[in-house]
């Protein structure tokens, strides 16, 4: 078990934020940082996943492990995330269908576009296995499967040159912005909510920065120097979010995706804002950690078990939405939903660690 550290802390923080933001309309939504900027917790989550790949594919001494082992490690992780996605999707569909039956309310079947599944299960079940059928709010894990699946390419290139890995990634990113590349949804028209061709950049960026951070002090020095700029970007983000000023996608010049604030394509404005957030808030952990030990413990435990916590968070937020829907919401219900969710997520993280502890300490039968 890792000691508390900044990566796990921020990951836990991102998980909590995603959980709250996935119960739309709830009172606490407006207190999450996602409401006060252009980018949100999804960016943080993917970036930290990349950073963690950097850690995971190196030994304790910081030297890269043999390339073959890294590839197998990432493959194993891909399988794990894929399995989680299938489980979460099945449970989500069952919860939606079950609620519709129990409450005698077919409206619930339309929840997060699940209606497509119930109307056309034959194609949808194939799409589910192919990851091309996604429910609203259940679209981060498919992205994650794909990103970790292609991560070996960047990790191997990174063994030769981190700069080359980053250049490759930026190239794919810019090309998909200019040509509008994305993976299709199926069944049904449209594309993935998180465009993997664009979002891979954050993963690779996390991976590359982790490598540079390990190698020398230059990155940290620059981060300190650029801190004021980060603060300015964050303030600008707050201003834009609060005043709801954003570019009109019909009026910006071609290629449009270079100029809009679109989440699907992680457009440059979002990326820039995220980097600003990173610069402004990264130093915060060192200040906070000694003061809020308990919270740090709680968040880092979640961060260490992010896949389990994320999966459980998706399910709990769906249940939370159903509870809000059926009861009509309100501050009390929201407190109950968010409170039990936070306890549930904390328990999930604890449970996973308890299980692995008790497994390793006892001989397997």
């Amino acid at each position, binding site marked *: 078990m890792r000691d508390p550290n900044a990566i796990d802390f921020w990951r836990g923080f991102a998980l909590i934020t995603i959980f709250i933001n996935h119960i*739309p*309309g709830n009172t606490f*939504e407006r207190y999450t940082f996602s409401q006060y900027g252009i980018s949100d917790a999804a960016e943080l989550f993917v970036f930290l996943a990349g950073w963690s790949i950097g850690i995971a594919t190196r030994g304790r001494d910081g030297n890269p492990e043999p390339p073959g082992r890294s590839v197998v490690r990432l493959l194993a992780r891909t399988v794990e995330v894929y399995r989680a996605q299938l489980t979460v999707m099945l449970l989500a569909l069952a919860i939606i269908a079950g609620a519709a*039956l129990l*409450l*005698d*309310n*077919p*409206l*619930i*079947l*339309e*929840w*997060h*576009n699940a*209606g*497509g599944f*119930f*109307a*056309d299960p*034959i*194609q949808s079940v194939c799409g589910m296995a192919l990851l091309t059928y996604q*429910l*609203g*709010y259940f*679209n981060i894990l498919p992205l994650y499967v794909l990103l970790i699946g292609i991560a070996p390419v960047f990790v191997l290139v990174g063994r030769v040159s981190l700069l080359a890995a980053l250049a490759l990634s930026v190239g794919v990113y810019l090309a998909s912005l200019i040509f*509008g590349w994305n993976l299709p*949804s199926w*069944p*049904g*028209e*449209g594309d993935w*909510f998180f465009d993997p061709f664009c979002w891979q950049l954050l993963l690779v960026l996390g991976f590359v920065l982790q490598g540079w951070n390990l190698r020398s002090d230059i990155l940290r020095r620059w981060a300190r120097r650029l801190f004021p700029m980060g603060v300015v970007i964050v303030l600008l983000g707050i201003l834009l979010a609060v005043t709801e000023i*954003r570019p*009109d*996608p*019909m009026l910006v010049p071609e290629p*449009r995706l270079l100029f*809009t*604030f*679109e*989440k*699907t394509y992680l457009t440059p404005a979002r990326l820039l804002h995220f980097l600003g957030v990173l610069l402004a808030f990264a130093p915060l952990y060192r200040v906070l950690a000694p003061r809020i030990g308990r919270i740090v413990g709680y968040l880092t435990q979640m961060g260490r078990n992010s896949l389990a916590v994320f999966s459980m968070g998706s399910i709990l937020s769906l249940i939370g*939405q159903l509870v*809000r*829907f059926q009861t*009509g*919401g309100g501050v009390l219900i929201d407190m109950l939903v968010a409170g039990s969710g936070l306890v549930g997520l904390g328990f999930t993280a604890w449970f996973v660690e308890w299980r692995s502890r008790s497994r390793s300490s006892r001989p397997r039968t």
Partner: protein
Amino acid sequence: MAQPQQIVATADMMRAGYPVRPSRAVRTGAAGGLAPALATWILTASLWGIPGGSAAAEQPTIPAPGDPTLSLECRVPGAQLYTVAQLGAVKAALAENRPLKILAIGGSAAPGASASYPAKLEAALEHALPKVDVTIDHRGLPGEIASGAAERLRTMVAEAEPDLVVWQVGTHDAIARVDVDAFASALAEAVGWIRSHEIDVVLVDPIYTASMAADVDYNRIVEAVRTVATQQGVPLVRRYEALHYLSSRTDKGEGHMLGRQFRLNDLGLRCMAEHVALTIATSLMRTETPKEPKAAPAQPPLTEPQRAPG
């Protein structure tokens, strides 16, 4: 060439017991030279197996159950089905003889993989607008209009650059118990934005189902969609009202293993395409010829919006 068609269409509509103020429709139609649109009434009527000009239709023994251009199970009186308004951009596309590009947003495919909602809508519109090539882009729009989804809509519209957006709206916000005023203002802003780019909008309000009939918030969301449609001067498919009407009809025959509400829901999905197509066709008939200044304030809807029961 156009003249005889108009006359035939008018006569046919009269005979078929066309319920929505035929005289007015004809007058507008004649003024606008709307031969193709009017001719479609014959076509749609005949294609959907409506007896045109039969003695039974002239002297109906039972009151007309609904608009006769709809298939039997989907028939709803016009007043309970739609609110019409001008569709200038669609009209312009038709006048220029170019393919009509529609972006259909929201809603799932109808039950049965063979005839999904976008496929059915395309077929229904191509019946209603012969010689017009209709292409439909169907997109799901996850999330709430009041938070985020309206943003995504803008990008979708910018990508598709359609002539018309058919938007099933309100369900997600209703489910999320979003504040109604926030929903209404976000929707009004989004509709206004689409229209500011010379793209027409047809709104479709949420479904009717018995367990939601007494739900105050839900009815306020349905109401908000209507209010926005009226204020913004866009046609509205009043799905809530239509399904409420259909639910009140005696349903004989087909049962549903999951119960009555699920049967009604299936029916609603099956009828969606027809209801949308009829709303578009009717709105087109009432639309004046293009080249008029687009900046002219939107016409008030021609039928009065009705309040949802409950």
